[in-house]
Each structure stands twice: as C-alpha cells, then as structure tokens.
C-alpha cells in the first residue's frame, strides 16, 4: 500500500519521538507530592515503622546500656580501677620501691585517670599502735598500718569524718602524721582531734590529723592507720614482705588502657619494673545472661516492624486503588508502567525512611531519657543509629513492591474510567 517515500518518512518519524521520561528530580517531587496529598494518612502510616524502628533502637540501646550497666552495678569499683604492681621489687632480693616520689602526679597525667596513689602495708616484727588519750594508755596491736601517698587517699575514696587528710606538704617533709579509721580512733580513745592527739606506731610518735569512716577501694584504711609514704620510708625503709603498688581510679572504661600506659608514664626510664593490670571485667558474664532477654525484645521489635510494613503496604495499596484516575491520567500523559510503579515504590520507601528516621530519633531520645533517669551511662552502637533509617527504607521498599506492581499493570483505559 505505502509508497517507498512514505515508508521512509515513517521510519524517520518513528525516531523523532523521544521516549517519555520520569527524571529523578521529578520522581522525587511527584512522590513527595503524593505523600503530602494526604498528610494525615501518611503520618499514621509512618507510625507503624516509626514504632517498630523506634522500639528496635530503644531495645538495642537499653540492652547495650544495661549489659554495661549490670556489669557496672556488680563491679562499679573494678570497672574504674587499675593497679600498677612493683614487679621490679618483687624480683629483687633487697627491699625497694620502684615508684618515684612524684608517681601520683605522673600517673595523673594519663588521660582517664581520676586519682592515683602508691601504698603498701607496713609490717612490724613486734610492734603495735598505742595512744595516750584521756589519761590512759590504749594499745591496739594488730592494727593494719598502711603507708600511702596523698594521692592514694583520693584514689581509694576515703570518707573523712573529721580533721584533714595528709597532703603533699606532709609527704614532702616526711611528717609524723597519721590518719585513723573511725573504729581505730574509738578503740584508742581518741574522740576529738582538738589538742592534736598523738599515737605511737612502733614507738614513733605520730600526730593524728584526720579520722576517716571508710574507704571504698581499700577497706583496710577504714579500720587501720595510714601514714605518709615518705614517713614510712624514713622510719622503716622500703617494704620487704609486700611490695608497693599503685591504685588508680579511672573514668569508666578507661581502666584497661590506663593499666597499659601507666608503667611507661611512671617509669619512662625503665617501664619493665612496673606492671599494670586492670580489674577483670565481669561484663562478659552479664552479657551472656542478658542475651536471651534481648532476643525476646528484638523479636517484639521485629513484630512491630512487620506490622509497620503491613501498614505501609495496605496504605499504598489503598492509594493505588484510590488514585486509579490519577494513574490513568499519568499514563495518558505519557507515563510508562515503570514510571507509575517506581513512583509508588518511592512513596512507600520514603514513608519507611521517614518512619525510620523519626523512630531512630525517638529511640535515641528514649534511651537518653531512661539512662539519665537511672543515672546510667548510655551505650549505643552508632551503626544502629545509621542502620535504623536504612532498615525503615528497606521495609517501605518491600512493602511497596506489590502495590507498585498493581499500579503499574493497571490498564490506562480502565484506570481513567474509575
């Protein structure tokens, strides 16, 4: 029928019509407009994914915080505590203290150290502590006597009842001063520090300058006598039986690192003389205990997420049916089936993404609220915070697959009639 000229024309014209398009910016604005058409419904649809993702983040965060926290409850002291042992003195035959006089200050420079101090128990062959107070001699033979640097009193967390603790001055001048435990003071008949009561340790006079109630980390300080380290060295020499050691109070989580760094920081000339150690952590044990509980909660969060996905799928499907006329119109305006499908898929993915974003934010807020309320340290893997909105988007994407397919296979002529 057609002439050669016509068939040539036909071919040329065929190529003349550029394919219809849905560019990315247009896809974005069309999908957003679709969501904002019914903002209330979109918000309600968000709710499911929001709750799912939000509870997921909260549960993971609280579980992480709690497993850190349970460990902390049991080991609140150990978790913030490191030791440095005098390995050199332990191996040498002659008594020695390998900590320099300024060890407290050196250790204090390490990041994460709250307080640090050196101490050792002083042993006497045949000696004791006695006092003249209230006109009679009281003697307490078996009292533990501890030589300590001023930093140790802070590191050990002693509670002062009255008087004062000894300080750098007493230490520097090797003063004969002593701090007594409350019960010791009572046993020795010292009820008041007025008049500067004196005690005798191994026959040496000491002025009692402070009375302490208890010590969190070194209980012996609360039930014994503590004297400056330099004074003990001057009077009794370096410890022979039990070596000096350093007690370090660290910030939470720093103990291990501090223990590693301390020998170098304190004895840069010969770090091998000292040996750092952090208290063994019981967190691992607690983590095992709480895993089964976490699994249960995570299953619940997963159910919430599935419910959210069903919500998105349902809303998107309703939207597809409801907007059949719009779909028909778009097809008439040149949209290809895939343009329709991708638009609805983008809408459902955006719903999931927004739900995930809001959910993750609320989850973090909930974790913070709970941990602040309980005076806990919030622990949350930052990867969770990043993964949560992505998970929401994936949920939205999956939920949108079927409705998008339905939308894309809708016949334009049928769709326009609705």
């Amino acid at each position, binding site marked *: 029928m057609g002439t050669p000229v016509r068939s040539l024309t*036909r071919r040329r014209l065929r190529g003349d019509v550029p394919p*219809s398009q849905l560019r990315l910016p247009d896809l974005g604005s069309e999908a957003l407009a679709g969501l904002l058409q019914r903002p209330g419904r979109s918000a309600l649809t968000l709710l499911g994914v929001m709750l799912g993702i939000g509870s997921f983040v909260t549960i993971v965060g609280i579980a992480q915080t709690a497993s850190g926290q349970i460990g902390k409850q049991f080991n609140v002291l150990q978790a913030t505590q490191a030791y440095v042992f005098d390995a050199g003195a332990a191996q040498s035959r002659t008594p020695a203290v390998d900590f320099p006089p300024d060890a407290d200050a050196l250790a204090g420079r390490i990041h994460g150290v709250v307080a640090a101090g050196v101490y050792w128990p002083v042993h006497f062959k045949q000696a004791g502590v006695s006092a003249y107070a209230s006109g009679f001699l009281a003697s307490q033979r078996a009292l533990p006597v501890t030589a300590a640097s001023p930093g140790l009193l802070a590191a050990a967390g002693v509670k002062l009842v009255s008087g004062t603790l000894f300080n750098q001055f007493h230490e520097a001048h090797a003063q004969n001063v002593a701090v007594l435990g409350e019960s010791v003071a009572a046993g020795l008949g010292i009820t008041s520090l007025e008049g500067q009561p004196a005690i005798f340790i191994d026959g040496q006079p000491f002025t009692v300058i402070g009375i302490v109630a208890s010590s969190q980390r070194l209980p012996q300080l609360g039930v014994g006598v503590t004297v400056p380290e330099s004074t003990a060295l001057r009077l009794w020499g370096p410890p022979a039986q039990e070596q000096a050691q350093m007690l370090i109070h660290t910030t939470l989580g720093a103990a291990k690192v501090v223990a590693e760094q301390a020998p170098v920081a304190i004895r840069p000339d010969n770090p091998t003389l000292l040996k750092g150690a952090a208290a063994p952590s019981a967190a691992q044990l607690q983590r095992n205990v709480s895993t089964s509980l976490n699994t249960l909660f995570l299953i619940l969060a997963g159910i919430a997420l599935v419910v959210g996905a069903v919500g998105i799928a349902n809303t998107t499907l309703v939207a597809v049916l409801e907007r059949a006329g719009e779909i028909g119109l778009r*097809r008439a305006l040149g949209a290809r089936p895939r343009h329709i499908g991708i638009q609805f898929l983008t809408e459902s993915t955006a719903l999931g993404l927004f739900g995930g974003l809001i959910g993750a934010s609320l989850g973090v807020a909930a974790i913070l609220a709970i941990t602040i309320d309980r005076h806990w340290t919030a622990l949350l893997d930052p990867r969770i915070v990043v993964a949560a909105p992505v998970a929401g988007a994936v949920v939205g994407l999956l939920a949108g697959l079927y409705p998008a397919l339905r939308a894309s296979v809708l016949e334009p002529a049928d769709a326009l009639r609705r």
Partner: protein
Amino acid sequence: MTGGRARGPAVEPVIRLSSVAYTYRGPPPVHALKPTNLVICRGEHVAITGPSGSGKSTLLNLLGLLDKPTHGTLEIDGIDVGAAPERERAAVRAHRIGFVFQSFHLLPYRTSIENVMLAQVYADQPRRRRRAAAMAALAQVGLADRADALPTALSGGERQRVAIARALVNHPSLLMCDEPTGNLDTATTNELTDLLESLHREGATLVVITHNPAVAGRAQRQIAIRDGRLTGHPPDGDTRALPDA
C-alpha cells in the same frame, strides 16, 4: 480510502486506521469495534458521536493509544503505533496527543499551573522552562489569572479549560477530547466549544467524542458510530469535507 494521500502534504494524515478492530475477549467475545478504516488529517475538527455502548470509548482508547487494537494497523503521524511496544506508545502519548476528559482528571491538591506542568514531566521538558510554557498554555485558554487556584476553587468550565491547557502544553499533533462538555451546563458548554473552535482555527487537530449534537455540529466532519461501525458521513474519510475557515 486512499484519497487522503493523493491530496499531498497539505492534508497530511495525523491518524490513519486500516482495518482496525477491537474485540473484548470473552466469553462471549464482544466485537466492540468492527474492522474500521479512518483517516483524520492535520487541522481537521472531527466529532465522533454515538449512543453509549456504541464503541465510542473503544475508539477513543484506540485513537488515544490507551488500548491496543486487536486487529489492523494504527498510525499516528505516520508512526505505526498499533502494535508498537508500550515504551513507544507512551512516547507518542506524551509528545503527540493531548487528552481532555469528561471528568477533567485534575489532581485536586495541585494548582492550575501545577496540573498543567504535570504533562511536562513525562514529555521531559526542562524544569526551568516548564512554568513559562504552562503559563502560556493557561493564557491560551484564558485562565492566566487563575494559575495559582486549586481545582476546588474553579468552576466546571474553568477546570475543563485547565485540562485543555494541560493537553496543549506539549504542542501535540492531536487534541483528543472525550465528552469534554459532558459535565458542564449549556452556557459553559457553548463557551468551551467556542474555545475548542478557536484552537482549531489556530491549527489544532481536534477529535471530539460527544453525544451532544450542538457540540458535534461545530465540527467540520461528524462520524457516527453505532454497534461498533462507523456509520456517519463519510464513513471512511473518502469524501472528507475540506477545512473552511
């Protein structure tokens, strides 16, 4: 039926149907459109009339590439689009056909100009130029001052004019109007028919499907359809009336 071609490029066909038929698969199969030949040339104003169930909508869907003929070949601008893949048919719809529907099909949450601009999305018009082109199309239908009004704030006639602006914005070869006045009162119908006529005078090719004799009477050529057959005069474009201005 080959008379259109003999007249040369001045009456270049926009639509050519050769033995086009459409059968709804049964059971029982319904022959909605019996094999039909039809040529509509550039610049023509054609009315297709017929009672409901006559095959009018089927013909419109075929002419508008919203449906594929089950038999025959359908060409638009010389492009055989009857059996072409959807990608190609969508491209022709986007660039060569403008639709006007009875129920307007305006998106309710978008202003007039935004509704017009929707047509430019799929025709891949550069974003920067869309607003100006849409404004020009609205001006063409006399609605430049209602560009930022939502459809709910427009009268029926105004809504249909927005729809016409949307159909015009990509400068199509063919304006396909499906009962454009079906939802309008008499006075508005007259206004709208005047607008369609003026568009025709400016060179648009119009196919208007209607059951309103007054609207059909404005066309240069009336084609009646009954029981899936074109029965009007002339049935197949043989003695088509020449455009007269």
